[in-house]
Structure formats: C-alpha cells, structure tokens
C-alpha cells in the first residue's frame, strides 16, 4: 500500500539545543513590539496593585460561579477557576496566518467527515487507512448515510489546541470536534480582565469578542431545517454533573438558547420537541454539548440515560439539525494528523497551511518498527476515544523491561496508538507573588461555520502550565487560563455584523415555556428549603428547652412534645423517653445533625436538587443555596454534640432559608418558575402547620395556656399575637391566628390562598375558572378552613370542639397530599423511566441431532 507510507505530519521540532520560543522577549533580549504597550501599563501600576487586582478578579469569577467542575454532591470541593491576568497579545499579521491555517483545517475536516458518513471514497482510495474509521469507536455506524438537513455542515463549531514550537511555528496539537468546550470561558476571561484591569486596554487596540457570539447566534438559526422566523434552538447539556456545566449555562444565556437536558426533550413521529408547561414545542436546532454516543439510547449507547430516545431517527428524517452532527467526532483522533497533508492536497488542492505536532500512526507495520527503534523521541498515546483513559507513555522515561512491555502492547493492537513528538512549547509570563515567571502555553481557538465558510473567534482561551514543564497543559492538571488579545491595526474597522433577523423583538413578560422538568425541580426546591426551615425551627425550640437541673415540669413536658414532633418527622430516631438528662438530649440531637442524621438528609436533598435549576436562579440565590447551605451543613457536622454550637447552627440555617425565600420573592420575576418554587414552599408550610397544630392540641387536651404559647412560638406568630391581644393567651385567638388568618404569612389559610392564586395564574386565561382538578382541591381545602367556626371551639373547647378540630386537620392534611399529587399530574413531565429492550435473548438454535 504505497500511498499510505509514512507521512511526516510536520517539519520536526527536534533541534534539542534551541531554547523554547519566548512570546514576549526576542533572542536579543528585546521586548517584542506588540508586548510593549501591555508591559508599559503593567509598570504604571502601583506596587502591590497586581495582588489586589488578582483578588478582585478571583472574587468576580467566584461571584459569577465560574468553575471548572461543579459537583452537586457538595462535599466534593468545587474547583475555583484558575486564571492569570497577563493576556497573550497576538499581532494582526501573525493572527492572519493562524486564521488561514485553522479555516483551511476546518474546511478539510468537514470534507473528511462528509466522506466518512457518505461515500467513503477516501478509504477506498487509500488516502486514509480504513482502521481510522472502522476501528474507531467514534465512528457511529447508525449515522452513516445521514446528511444534515438543508445543506448544514457536519462541523458547525470547531476548536483547535495550538502551540508554538522552538522554530517559532504554530502547530495543531489537538482537534476538538465532538463537543468542544472553552468559548464561553474565553468570553468570561475577557469580561473579568476588562473589569479588573481596564488600564491594560487603554493603549491596546484589542479585537472584541462579542461580535463573534452575535454571529454565532445567526449561524445557529441558519441551521434550522425548515424556514422559520424564530427557530427554536436548544443547548443540549448532560446536566449539572458535567465538568463544564458552568459554560453550558453561560453560553445558553449568551446565545439566547434554551438550556435542555435529555429529559426535557422528546421525539414524536421523528420530530424533536421540548416539553414545557405549555405543551410540546418543536425544536429545530440542537447545539450539542452532550457526547455524541450518549445522545440516543435507541441507536447509540443503549445504557445512556441522559440522551433522547429516537434522536437519530429525527435527524435522519431531516426534522432537526444537530451541531456538531452526530458522529463528527470521528476525525478527532490524533491518528488523522499524519494523513491531513495528503488529504488537503486531494480534497482542497492545497498544501496544509498549519502543520500538526509530529504524529505517527502505528497501525502500519513499517511505521511501528521505525518508532520502536526511536522510542526516546516520542510519547505513545492511545488514539481512539474509548481508550483515551489509558495513560500516555513517555518513551524516554521507560527502563528496559517497561519498554519491552510497551512494545508488546503496541504490537498486539498497533492501530490503537500514535506516537507524538514531545513539543517544547513557547513560554509567556505569568504573574506570581515573586514577579513574572515564564510558563509554557497552549492556545485553544474556536471557529464557527457561517454562510458556507468558517469564521474564527478573534481571541482564544490560552492555558498555561502549572509549572515550567512544558509538555502537559490542562485545566485538570492545575493549569491556568488567560485572555488572548488579537491586536488590530489602528485603522482596521471594527466590523459588527448586524443580526440577520433585524425584526424587533416583541416585548415579552414571561418565558411561557418553562420546561416541565424545571418546574418539577423548582417545586421541590421550594419544598425542601421550607422543610429545612421547619426542621431547624423545631429543633431550635427543642434545644432551648434542653433539660437541665433546674428544668420545670412544664419545660420537660414541652420538650417531650417537641421531641415527639422531631421523631414523627424522622429528624431524631425515636422520642426521648422519661426524664432525659442533657447528655441523652445532646446525643440524640447531635446524631440528628450529624452526617447520617435526619437534618443531614434534608441538606443532601437540597444540595441535589439546587444545581438542576441553577440557571433559573440569580447568582445571589445560587450563592445562598450552594455556599451558605454547605456552610450550614458543615457547622453541624464539625461539632456534633455541643448544644451551643447546635443552637447557633439552627439560627444560621433559619437565616439561610429566610435569605433564600426573601430573594425568591424579591429577585425572581414572578413568572411560572417562581410560582412553582412558591407553590412547593406553601404546600410544605401548610402541611407542617397542620401537623404542628394537631400535635400541640393532642398533647394539651384542653388547650391550656402554656401549650398555646408553644404553638405560637413554633408557628413564629408570638409577636403578632402579643401586639394584637396583649397577654391573654386563649385558644380561639391563637387558632384564628395560626389557622385562619389570611394576613398572617405563617397561617395555614395564607398558604392556601397563595396556592389558589398560583394555580389560577398558571392556567391559560381562556379556561373556565376552577376547571382543573388541582384548582378544585385547593379551593375546597381553603373553604374548609374558612368555614371552620373558631369562636365555637375557643369558647367551649370541649370534646366535641376538639373532635371538630381534629376532623378539620385530618381532612386538610389529606387534601394537601391530594393537591401535591394533582399538581404533579397536571404539570410535571413525570418522566417515566426509559428502558432499553431487545437485549434479553439472542439466537439460540440447537445443533441438529
């Protein structure tokens, strides 16, 4: 197979004597001209100013929630964004060359992908080895033969990691095609730098990034398979557990897309829909951040629970465009690199403008043997997606036995490996407490396809290594990100392309299309925060009565009632019997607040659900429900058994819940998302209220005054009562205040009134009032409370009155539970679990006798 012989991917960078290229300083020790303005600005800063600016930038990243890996299980520390404030300036002429190289490469890769999923003539004509496709798990056979609808490209969004070698040439180290990340981080790096070091920008003529994102928006709209004024575009994310989830949220906002998880989408009759409160809404374009093989359990990975069943069929039918197309990732393998120069000649009739890092594919015997003889010069890497977890091996670091072992492994499956030259990457300054130090860098560039051509982002996400070992640079290994400046000539006009659809956006008062899944999760976020608040209040009341030597009989009795309530809610394991001493109490409560206790379970539930609605919460609300909730949890878990600390923890927790609900009321637009959050909170508070009233009256029998005080305290209504009634505490006024008073935000009637209002607002206007089951239940339960004769109970409080109260509370409790179910049925997608079938039995013909 002559035409497949060794193909040097790049002029070698192997002159081991040359020092790495310095981005800032020439060999003669001169600061390069495009760095001078920047260095000048840096010199004018007062001593100590950089440290202060770094701190300011760190705060901004934190406040904006920029993280690399957000884990919902919050004991896992989130990694703060690592950054450096010295940008990398790139002069216009140099950028022109980089642009040309990357545009050509994107065009080339697009042609290769189209061939792989079409005629496969490149394989037949041996311009690339068949194994690069056939043995590559990123080649999705189910997608072969699918052409993107409406002439859309397979490769809509392309990213390349490039680095500069000792010879001063930029080379591509990695092609990112499957679902490239980083563009959003690049924009955020720019925004933070502009806010923290505005003086840097004054003398430099830096190209802006925002026009690129505006262009991206139009480009996405153009992908729609059917002509539509406002195509619906979603950003498909694997969800909050994804390490780049921050960016998904950020990009969705920046590009005006709906952020959707697989569970938000459904395929019906080969069309893709978003499940919203208002029904199914057809989706035209998907910007995909979910790895391609996870996208459809029917035709791709059957075990994927985060994809959309039937998606491949919808694409095949031409009803939706996915960017990047499913299967595009096949060209991401570094094994492609040696063949790109030949492919460029064949497909484009051009020389490859920007070389790749020197790469050899070991699937050819001659190549394998040559590399085996020069193992010291190379890093051996697995080249296919499924094998990427296997570590790269640096040839020069192997002793003889390891070397033999490696060669055995290579000979067993040579097609699965490449050998790459170690590249001595160029260095640029990084600011440290001890001044500027040089660090090797890697630049990730981004291109989008717009009107038949590729347009690069005039900027990049540059990463620098954590130390001066220039070989491995990644955010996982502690690298830091930097802004990248494309310097333009003074007179170059800033081209801001107008958005294609110049039609004015009509004013909108609501999004109107909240995903059912989000509504569901907001509802439960409301319930959990309220449940936490209620639990903390009960525990606080209990702690304040912690039996001590001088406890009165009444205090001990109250304590018993409260402890019973905690036990009924699963917050402590069992009621504390007899006359408990302080130690038994401290133990029970300490355990309840410890890592395995009931309170801890509430925290966990909250921490699980909060990230799923993160993009619906303001940064402040997110901070409360994320950071402060974690703080609260840590307070309990760090000091088990110390009653004072527990009491402080309860106060803190109650404050956190109050802050969250306050922000919800004041900072969220009162649209359907807020209504579901509030509905959850109201239903929870009403249910809690009903059982508290029940428990207190059941314990007190006659409604004696001390018990009524306890009820007021636990219901947070003591002050209101005092201002209304002065000192006399009697059953009727107390019941009126905690049960029936619609002006008391802690009263049960108040919750029910709010619930009713929400349910009426959520239903379309043209529907008859109270036509929906959940509305009728809400009305009925409120009416039951309204019609209850508090006066009669209060004046006599005999057994009949007690029975009437009992009946009311029992009835209300049952109806509240019906109400929660009715809301679930009416609004929440109630996603049934998907299961893959057809894997149960295989062919089983017996041998013939």
């Amino acid at each position, binding site marked *: 197979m002559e035409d497949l012989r060794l193909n040097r991917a790049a002029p070698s960078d192997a002159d081991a004597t040359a020092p790495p290229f310095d981005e800032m300083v020439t060999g003669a020790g001169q600061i390069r001209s495009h760095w001078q303005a920047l260095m000048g600005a840096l010199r004018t800063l007062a001593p100590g100013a950089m440290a202060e600016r770094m701190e300011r930038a760190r705060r901004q990243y934190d406040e904006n929630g920029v993280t690399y890996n957000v884990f919902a299980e919050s004991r896992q520390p989130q990694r703060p964004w690592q950054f450096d404030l010295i940008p990398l300036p790139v002069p216009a002429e140099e950028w022109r060359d980089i642009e040309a190289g990357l545009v050509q490469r994107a065009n080339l890769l697009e042609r290769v992908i189209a061939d792989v999923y079409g005629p496969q003539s490149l*394989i037949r004509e041996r311009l690339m080895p068949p194994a690069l496709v056939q043995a590559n798990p990123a080649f999705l056979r189910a997608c072969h033969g699918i052409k993107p609808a409406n002439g859309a490209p397979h490769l809509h969004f392309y990213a390349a990691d490039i680095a500069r070698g000792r010879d001063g040439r930029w080379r591509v180290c990695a092609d990112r095609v499957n679902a490239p990340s980083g563009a959003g981080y690049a924009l955020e790096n720019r925004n933070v730098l502009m806010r923290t070091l505005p003086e840097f920008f004054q003398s430099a003529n830096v190209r802006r990034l925002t026009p690129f994102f505006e262009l991206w928006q139009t480009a996405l709209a153009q992908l729609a398979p059917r002509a539509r004024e406002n195509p619906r575009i979603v950003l498909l994310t694997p969800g909050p557990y994804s390490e780049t989830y921050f960016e998904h949220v950020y990009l969705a906002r920046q590009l005006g897309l709906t952020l959707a998880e697989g569970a938000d989408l459904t395929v019906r*009759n080969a069309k893709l829909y978003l499940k919203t409160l208002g029904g199914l809404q057809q989706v035209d374009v998907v910007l995909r951040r979910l790895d391609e093989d996870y996208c459809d359990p029917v035709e791709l990975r059957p075990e994927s629970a985060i994809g959309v*069943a*039937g998606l491949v069929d919808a694409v095949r039918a031409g009803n939706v465009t996915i960017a990047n197309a499913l299967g595009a990732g096949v060209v991401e393998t570094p094994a492609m690199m040696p063949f790109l120069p030949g492919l460029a000649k064949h497909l484009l009739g051009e020389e490859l403008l920007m070389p790749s890092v020197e790469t050899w594919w070991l699937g050819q015997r001659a190549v394998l043997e040559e590399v085996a003889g020069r193992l010291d010069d190379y890093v051996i890497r697995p080249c296919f997606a499924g094998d990427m977890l296997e570590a790269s091996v640096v040839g020069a670091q192997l002793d003889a036995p390891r070397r033999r072992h490696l060669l055995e492994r290579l000979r067993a499956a040579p097609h699965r490996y490449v050998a790459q030259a170690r590249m001595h990457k160029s260095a640029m300054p990084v600011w440290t407490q001890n001044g500027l130090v040089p660090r090797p860098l890697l630049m990730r560039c981004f291109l989008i396809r717009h009107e038949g051509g590729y347009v690069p982002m005039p900027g990049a996400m540059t990463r620098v290594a954590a130390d001066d070992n220039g070989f491995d640079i990644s955010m996982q290994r502690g690298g830091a990100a930097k802004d990248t400046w494309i310097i333009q000539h003074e007179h170059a006009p800033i081209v801001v392309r107008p958005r294609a659809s110049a039609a004015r956006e009509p004013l909108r008062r609501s999004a109107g299309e909240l995903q059912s899944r989000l509504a569901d999760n907001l509802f439960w976020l409301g319930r959990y925060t309220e449940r936490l608040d209620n639990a903390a209040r009960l525990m606080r009341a209990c702690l304040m009565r912690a039996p001590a030597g001088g406890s009165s009989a009444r205090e001990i009795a109250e304590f018993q009632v409260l402890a019973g309530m905690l036990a009924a809610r699963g917050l402590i394991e069992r009621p504390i019997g007899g006359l408990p001493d302080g130690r038994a109490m401290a133990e029970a409560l300490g355990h309840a607040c410890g890592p395995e206790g009931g309170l801890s379970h509430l925290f966990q539930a909250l921490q699980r659900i909060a990230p799923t609605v993160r993009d619906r919460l303001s940064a402040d609300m997110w901070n409360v429900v994320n950071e402060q909730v974690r703080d609260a949890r840590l307070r309990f878990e760090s000091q088990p058994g110390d009653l004072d600390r527990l009491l402080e923890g309860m106060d803190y927790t109650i404050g956190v819940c109050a802050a969250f609900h306050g922000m919800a009321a004041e900072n969220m637009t009162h649209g359907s998302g807020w209504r579901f959050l509030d509905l959850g909170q109201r239903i929870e508070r009403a249910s809690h209220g009903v059982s508290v009233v029940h428990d207190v009256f059941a314990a007190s029998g006659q409604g004696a005054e001390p018990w009524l005080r306890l009820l007021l305290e636990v219901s947070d209504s003591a002050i209101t009562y005092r201002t209304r009634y002065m000192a006399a505490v009697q059953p009727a006024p107390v019941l009126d205040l905690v049960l029936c008073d619609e002006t008391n935000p802690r009263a049960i009637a108040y919750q029910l009134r709010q619930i009713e209002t929400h349910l009426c607002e959520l239903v379309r206007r043209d529907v008859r009032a109270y036509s929906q089951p959940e509305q009728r239940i809400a009305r009925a339960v409120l009416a039951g409370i309204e019609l209850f004769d508090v006066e009669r109970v209060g004046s006599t409080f005999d057994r009949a009155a007690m029975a009437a109260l009992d009946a009311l509370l029992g009835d209300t409790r049952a109806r509240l539970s019906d109400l929660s179910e009715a809301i679930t049925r009416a609004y929440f997608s109630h996603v049934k679990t998907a299961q893959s079938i057809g894997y149960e039995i*295989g062919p089983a013909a017996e041998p*013939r006798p």
Partner: protein
Amino acid sequence: MIYDVVHRTTYRYEEPVDLSYHVMRVLPRVLPTQRILRAGTIVTPAPVRVQDGTDYFGNAVTHMSLEEPHAELVVDARALVEVRAAPVPDADATPAWETVRDALDGGGLPVETQAVEFVRASPMAAIDDAVRDYAAASFRPGAPLLACLLDLNKRIRNDFTFDPRATNVATPVADVMQMRRGVCQDFAHAMIAGVRAMGLAARYVSGYIRTYAPQGQIRRQGADASHAWVSVFVPGAGWIDLDPTNDLVVGEEHVVLGWGRDYGDIAPIRGVILGGGAHRLDVSVDLKPVSDEDQA
C-alpha cells in the same frame, strides 16, 4: 428451496408503555443466493411511524415508534424466500492463510475495503490469548485458508457443548472459551474472535436454519429458533458461510437476515420503551419448506 418464514416477537408489559422506539432487522436480505418472493411485517398496535431503510452493512432495517399506550407489542415478520446453495471452492486450492492475512493488513494483494472492517475485534467479539491460542491450532503454517477455517468450524462443533443455561445474550467470548458451553451465538462469536485473532476477516450472520422433526414425529409449528453463524472472507471466492454449531458449510437450509461485526450490529428487535415496568418476551420462529405447488 423455498421457505415460508414466520418470526413472531411478543412483548408483554406489566404496566402500559406510553412511548416506544424500535429498530428492527427481521426481513431477509437480498443476496445472489437468496431471492425474496414476498416479505413484510405487521406490528400491533399500529406504529405512528414506520420507516424502512438499509443500514450501514446493507441489511434491511426498519425504524418505528409507537405513541399510544399499549400493554403488548406483537411484531410479525413473514417472508417467502428462495435459497440456493453458493458454490464452495476446493478448500485445498485456496491461498495460504498467511497471504490473506498480509493482504488484509495492507501489504500485497488488493482486497475489498469492506473485508478490512471484519478483521478487528468488535465489542462482542473481543480477542484474548485464550481464543487466539485455541484458533491457532487450526492454522498450520502455509495451510490453505479454507482448510484451516473448516477445521476450526469442526473443532468448535466437537469441543463445545450446547447449553442454553450456561450463557446469556451478553456473555463475553472469554467466558465461553473457559466454559466451552453456550448456544449458536456464543459459538459464532468464539469462531469470529478466533479467525480475527489470526488476522483474517469474519462476520456474524443472523438468520434461521431448517430443522427436522425427530423420526416419526410431526414438525412442531413455531418451534424453530433464530440462528447465528459465521461468514469468512476467502479471496477469489468471496464470503463463505460456515455454521460452527452444526459443523456445516451453509447451503440451502439457512435463510440469511443480515450480518454485522457481531450480534450487537444485527440484533433482530431493539428499542427503548417509556414506562412498562417488568416485561416478558416471547419469540417464535417457524421455517416451513414450501413446494412449488403450495406456493402457487
């Protein structure tokens, strides 16, 4: 020979299924040795979408989805197929296996690109030392390719015991090699992995085999089963089908549905259901020889 094939698949769900999506490969493939006189599927309840097409390997494939709640799904695939035996070359006249191996590896003889696809290990036919060592015994240096393959085909028939309880649909080749037990699918995967371990091309064929009632009994309807065997690439002759379960060279008693790298590429009915709870699956296959008069 003409066969009337009825392949019925029934899913019974514990709870109603609201939505379901399926990919089916239950209609026989058109081949030089196989003519399809009539073929079609009937699905109950009626799907909202049925799309017939051809998959990457050229097999007939149907995509369908159901959108009304159903507790039972029945897929009836029926075909009238005429099968002829393919000519089998003289085994001793086939090229030495090493020559073919080198050709497939990219040196020497030009080979069909598509054969290369079937040389590498695939998800359900992983290659390890056990399967390599087992297969190697059939490949003496310089021996003619087809003779080696026939030997391997016979050894598997002799060395492996049919035992449906020993394996399930996902049992890896390594386990089958260790137990030396399984069903037709396991034997096919073991042979495929072995052939590929030698650097040769083998693919997995899904289909049916004609069965005979024991002496004095009447053929029971629906008692047949899906079958699986192996197709090997022999330059000059093309693909030759071998059935390691029965130590046969496939003639006119096998009906081919289609092929892939392994079972994963060619499972008859696969899908995703929403809802459903637990389910039961029943498959019945009937392969009835038809005389020309019956057919008219």
